[in-house]
């Protein structure tokens, strides 16, 4: 069974359903596959990730998204997350007053509780957190600070991937995780993502740059323009785009 199956998805803002942002997306991701989505600014990439995660304010006006056979649209955002859908945000928000470690532990325990498992042992949690922090080059004292508060752009992105590693999701959606990362950090984060690649797990990687895809080599590359997937190919498509830009596709989308 496909891990994520998007069929003819149309989506818009809740406040303005007359203006479609996504205009018929079809996308199937099987377990073990890594898909990349590239596309010009404003194409609808983040909107797609928002609809998958269930961000309030966005509605699917038609079409469907099945995750592991279940209709995602019937699930609240927290249910989706507990079922194994993870979105690494393009712009992670700062939440003053909530310590990173408390947040992570609460999130992990919410998932365990839903599965009928007991809370994670404090020591096991600390160990896992420290190991992941080390691997992703996140200073331990950052985990004592409030969620994302005062983190640099790159630090926020690393911490998103740290969260992903802790949550062990089955379907990972990464929205421009590479933006804001310096060259060394890009490699560290890519290594972190690669370590999570597995035959059960699917990934959808949204990016503007081929560089990330040199490190996280995708199985499939899509071009999203004007709310539609206008081209699908293998990893060489990313190289073509890097060389030639989107002009050919945006024209196609407008036509």
């Amino acid at each position, binding site marked *: 069974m496909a891990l994520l199956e998007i069929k003819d998805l149309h989506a818009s803002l809740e406040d303005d359903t007359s203006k479609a942002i996504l205009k018929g997306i079809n996308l199937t991701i099987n377990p073990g596959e890594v898909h990349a989505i590239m596309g010009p600014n404003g194409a609808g990439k983040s909107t797609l990730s928002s609809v998958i995660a269930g961000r309030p304010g966005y509605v699917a006006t038609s079409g469907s998204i099945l995750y592991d056979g279940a209709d995602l649209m019937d699930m609240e955002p927290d249910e989706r997350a507990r079922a194994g859908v993870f979105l690494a945000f393009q712009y992670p*928000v700062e939440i*003053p*007053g909530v310590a990173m470690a408390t947040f992570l532990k609460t999130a992990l325990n919410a998932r365990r509780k839903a599965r009928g498992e007991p809370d994670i042992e404090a020591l096991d949690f600390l160990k896992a957190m420290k190991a992941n922090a080390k691997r992703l080059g996140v200073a331990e004292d950052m985990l004592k600070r409030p969620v994302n508060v005062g983190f640099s752009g790159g630090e926020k992105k690393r911490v998103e991937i740290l969260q992903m590693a802790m949550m062990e999701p089955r379907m990972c959606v990464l929205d421009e995780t590479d933006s804001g990362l310096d060259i060394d950090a890009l490699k560290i984060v890519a290594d972190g993502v690669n370590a999570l690649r597995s035959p059960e797990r699917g990934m959808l990687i949204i990016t503007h740059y081929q560089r990330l895809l040199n490190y996280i080599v995708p199985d499939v590359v899509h071009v999203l323009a004007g709310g539609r997937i206008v081209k699908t190919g293998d990893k060489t498509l990313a190289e073509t785009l890097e060389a030639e830009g989107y002009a050919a596709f945006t024209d196609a989308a407008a036509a």
Partner: protein
Amino acid sequence: MTETTDLIPRTLDAAALGADEPAWLADLRRAGLSVYRERGLPTVKVEAWKYTNLSGLTKIPFTQDDGALGPSDGAGRGALDLPDVHQVMLVNGRAVSLPGDLPAGVRMVRLSHLLATEPETVRPHLGQIADLSDAPMGSLNAALMGDGLVILVAPGVALDKPIHVVSVTDAPDGARHVHPRHLVVMGEGADATLVESRVTAPGAAESLSNAVTEIRLEARARLRHLRLVNVASEAVDLDLTETTLDADAAYDAFTLTLGGRLVRNEGRVRLRGTGAEARLHGAYGAAEGHHIDTTLVVDHAVADAISDQHFKGVVDAGGRGVFQGKVIVRRDAQRTDGNQLHQALLLARGAEVDTKPELEIYADDVKCSHGATIGELDPDHVFYLMARGIPESEARALLVEAFLDDVVEAVPEGPLREAFLGAVRVWQARRHAATWEA
């Protein structure tokens, strides 16, 4: 015509008040009676009571507490659970158990006991610290004052562990009004942490507690005064605490109020010694049917003193928060540093908050500020937490706790802070349970 209740019967004879008490005490009662008779139960036309309406009290068939109740089953439920403290339980102001192992130089006694055995110990303080002439409910307390707790800490004595006063209001057999009167005197350089839990006995009928606490901090004395007000939805709980600080004394107050049909925490602080510092911090949670009023007056009478008021309120649909904060800086109070901030978080439509900041400044070289904000939970924050699998109710509870985080820091870290945070969590869980039932 509907029957209305008078808290003081019209027939009460002033001459009969305090008949078997020392003359100075009888005078105190009569002074209170005359102020209260003149002003009556404050209405919303009285500026200081503009947002807090007591008129509902006249519809409750109250009788005055007789000071004879013992602790009922479960009395103290809802109080903080604190390990390693000197604990005392009061029922309607009267101590029903007193700790036996107090360190030398510390006394904790019933007011009634001191008045009967050594009135001269009380006389310099009782009614001398608080000026109640402009406080109708405080005056009513003076007239009708019942028993209360007296805490005396000798100069230079530092308490080994916190005092915890569990103050229970009970009305087992019909509505009662009660007027507890407490006194805290800290000698020069004394140091103590006083924790109070104000609760209602399980199953109590409607009640009005109208307490006055007088606190004197002599030079360099330091008091951390932490309060939890966790009274029943039928309870009306009025408290007026007046504190005077001599030179270099420090008063660190934190009040957490979680519910009550009508709660008013009125704090008056007089900084009358240079170098004195008062921090009045607190938080409250007002859910459906709850009205929580914080009214503060800080009076900088001398130069070089510091005051800081910071309260945060969390208000749900049908709840109401009131914050009135006043800073007075007298002519001589140069180089005063006085700040005031009230921040409210409205959890739903139909939540109401009224704030009235006032600065009265007569000195020219001062640093004063005041501010008030009203906000809601940020939907992006809620979504971020939910996107990590945290259910909405839990996400919102976490964010409410985060909102309160910086004021709760006024409580010393460790078991005390944990206990206060625990009370906030219970309150939140109860609120959510109510939401899901509805």
